[in-house]
């Protein structure tokens, strides 16, 4: 019988930049420990940092404390990231891409994070709005012919 290794990472943080940084470190340690290959490991770390930074910076219409839930499961084929926040409705799949044709002095300094993550996962992302929650699911393939990242 074929053994499938499943690993999971689950954490709830508040909408606080310092908590997010600790979380990002822990996510990167998690993917290293379960020997995710170098490229998908980068994508998992980037997706968590970019999407959660975006939630913390732009999602809330009040100054209150909010919970953000993160769930990562790896089944050998894919890493699936599930993010849940109770900010205002925002579908990152509808965000406009940055204009890369502008000269350096006219480039806006925002909007890149979501675009990068979408490109890196080939838009393998689903968005739902349920009972006041934004639920974003991102799927990252884990090719098994690659070497895990060295220390």
């Amino acid at each position, binding site marked *: 019988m074929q053994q499938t290794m499943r690993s999971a990472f689950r954490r709830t943080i508040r909408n606080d930049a310092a908590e*997010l940084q600790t979380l990002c470190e822990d996510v990167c340690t998690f993917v290293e420990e379960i020997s995710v290959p170098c490229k998908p490991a980068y994508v998992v770390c980037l997706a968590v940092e970019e999407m959660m*930074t975006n939630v913390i910076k732009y999602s809330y219409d009040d100054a209150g404390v909010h919970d953000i839930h993160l769930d990562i499961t790896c089944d050998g084929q894919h890493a699936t990231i599930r993010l849940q926040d109770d900010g205002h409705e925002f579908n990152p799949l509808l965000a406009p891409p940055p204009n890369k*044709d502008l000269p350096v*002095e006219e480039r806006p300094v925002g909007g*890149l994070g979501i675009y990068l993550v979408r490109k890196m996962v080939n838009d393998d992302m689903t968005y739902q709005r349920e009972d006041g929650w934004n639920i974003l699911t991102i799927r990252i393939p884990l090719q098994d012919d690659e070497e895990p990242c060295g220390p």
Partner: protein
Amino acid sequence: MEVLQSTEDSIQQIAVSGKLDGLSSPALEEELNKAVAASELPAILNFSELAYISSAGLRVILDYLKKMKGAGRKVAMVANDEMLLYVLKRAGFNLLLPIVPTSEEAKGKLGAA
């Protein structure tokens, strides 16, 4: 994240290693602001030891490039990690400055080889 600065062959060399994320990017911004103020020379941004960059880091680099352009100074970048190059290209940085695999080629791009 670590930043090493030196001047070599009339080029300001800035080598950034480690991870350039939301946590470390403000420290790089401070270092780059100092580097812009400290010299009139063309510059090489060396990312050959950089393992990770997120949009927070890209924003700091973009801001630096704007300042350097404003000061009339040329910048070239050294990068060779596959993921790093992918991110830089996706963000369109290859349209903003030369990105090459070695310091020697970067010097060439600055007309100082």
